[in-house]
């Protein structure tokens, strides 16, 4: 039980995907302009990440490990996630049109994102069990959601601030992300895995 909790906390704050590992930066900067969009993105990433790491674990464990083809992990996972997101998009579009209107555009952005690929790869590398992989994926997703929501709230406030002309837009966003990352550095060393 303790191990689950440690992995969860570590994934949310200590090894936060965006602010410590610097993965998934394109959506982090692209969709953090307004708070509502960032919440939608955070939820979409969390659910896609969890579902795809379940699937990835099954494929890794029963196909790749059985045939001693672990060196193919990255290639297979890329294929797997891209097709899984496509599938998920179709299902959501048919079964839950309201959810599709909210998430549809984000789902396609996630299809080829490194943060979604990163979690199954780390799971496979660390040799997590199925349940540990799921907990790690949920934690990572929530960590991503936390980072993007924080960033979006900051950038909404920033719109009213008097930013020097040369730094307006992405420039100040990068500086802000750097400061957030510094703040998250405070968590490092809290948990040793």
């Amino acid at each position, binding site marked *: 039980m303790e191990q689950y909790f440690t992995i969860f906390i570590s994934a949310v704050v200590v090894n936060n995907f965006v602010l410590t590992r610097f993965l998934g930066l394109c959506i982090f900067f692209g969709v953090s302009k307004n708070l509502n969009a960032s919440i939608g993105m955070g939820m979409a990433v969390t659910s896609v990440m969890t579902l795809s790491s379940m699937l990835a674990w099954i494929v890794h464990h029963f196909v790749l490990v059985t*045939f001693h083809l672990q060196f193919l992990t990255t*290639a297979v996972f890329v*294929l797997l996630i891209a*097709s899984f997101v*496509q*599938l998920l998009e*179709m*299902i959501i579009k*048919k079964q839950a049109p309201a959810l599709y209107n909210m998430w549809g555009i984000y789902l396609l952005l996630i299809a080829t994102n490194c943060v979604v690929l990163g979690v199954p790869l780390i799971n496979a590398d660390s040799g997590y069990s199925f349940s540990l992989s799921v907990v790690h994926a949920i934690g990572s997703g929530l960590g991503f959601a936390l980072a993007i929501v924080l960033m979006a709230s900051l950038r909404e406030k920033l719109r*009213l601030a008097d930013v020097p002309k040369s730094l307006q837009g992405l420039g100040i966003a990068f500086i802000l992300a750097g400061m957030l990352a510094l703040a998250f550095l405070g968590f490092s060393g809290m948990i040793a895995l």
Partner: protein
Amino acid sequence: MNTSIMVLIVMTMVGLIFGIILAYANKKFAVEVNPLIHIVEDILPKGQCGACGYAGCQAYAEAVVLNPDVPPTLCIPGKKPVANMVGELTGKVAPEMEPRVAHVRCSGGHSKAIKNYKYQGIEDCVAASLLQGGPKGCQHGCLGFGTCVKNCPFDAMSMSEEGLPIIDDKKCTGCGKCETVCPKHVMQMVPIGAPVTVNCNSKDKGAVARKLCTVSCIGCGICSKNCPHGAVKVENSLAIVDSSICLEKCTDPTCTAKCPTGAIVPAIGVASITESKKEIAANTN
């Protein structure tokens, strides 16, 4: 078995299985979308201005195709050509539409109008207007922080040196977004080709208006007395022009020459307006 053959087999199988699942899902979860919606959406100007009252161009396209009660004329930026095309596609009759263009009802820039205080807050008209109605002495004039410019979905506005918005007649579609966001209600939609416009929004009494701004309308009524067609009225010390009467009857505007402060003026860029009028006529035919 040779590893490379193994790799080939596994990758092929994985790809094949995913491919089959996706192909199956594509059939199984196919959503029927009326193809007309996409065609209508392509015709719309894609400014996402919301002037139609729907969330965006796609939402309006969906509504106009699926709901028989939604008229095809709601897209204001698209003007008549779009309304006609949408009407034709959806089998609805497009009633007459009057093309409009945005007009700034204020000419009291930095050099003409006095200021009560120096504003150093957020660069936004709505924020500035919360503070004693804004820094400008005249409580009805343009604050000049460019909220309308920032909100223009068609990039048709810019700020002049004097701190007043300039409208690009060629780009302005008359969607009315600027009219909604302006806290002072300075922006107004006027019919394209209106020969005269009142460049003032001040409802103050003449003496007060004069003191606050050198180019304000003082409500003297000279324009009203000089108009042979009765198109100009004075209400609340402010001249109001009924452009439909002007467009119909006026050939030689006398009101503008007689105005003592120059608040009522011939419309700027009349040439470009007549051109765009011709363009619209050409598009309609």
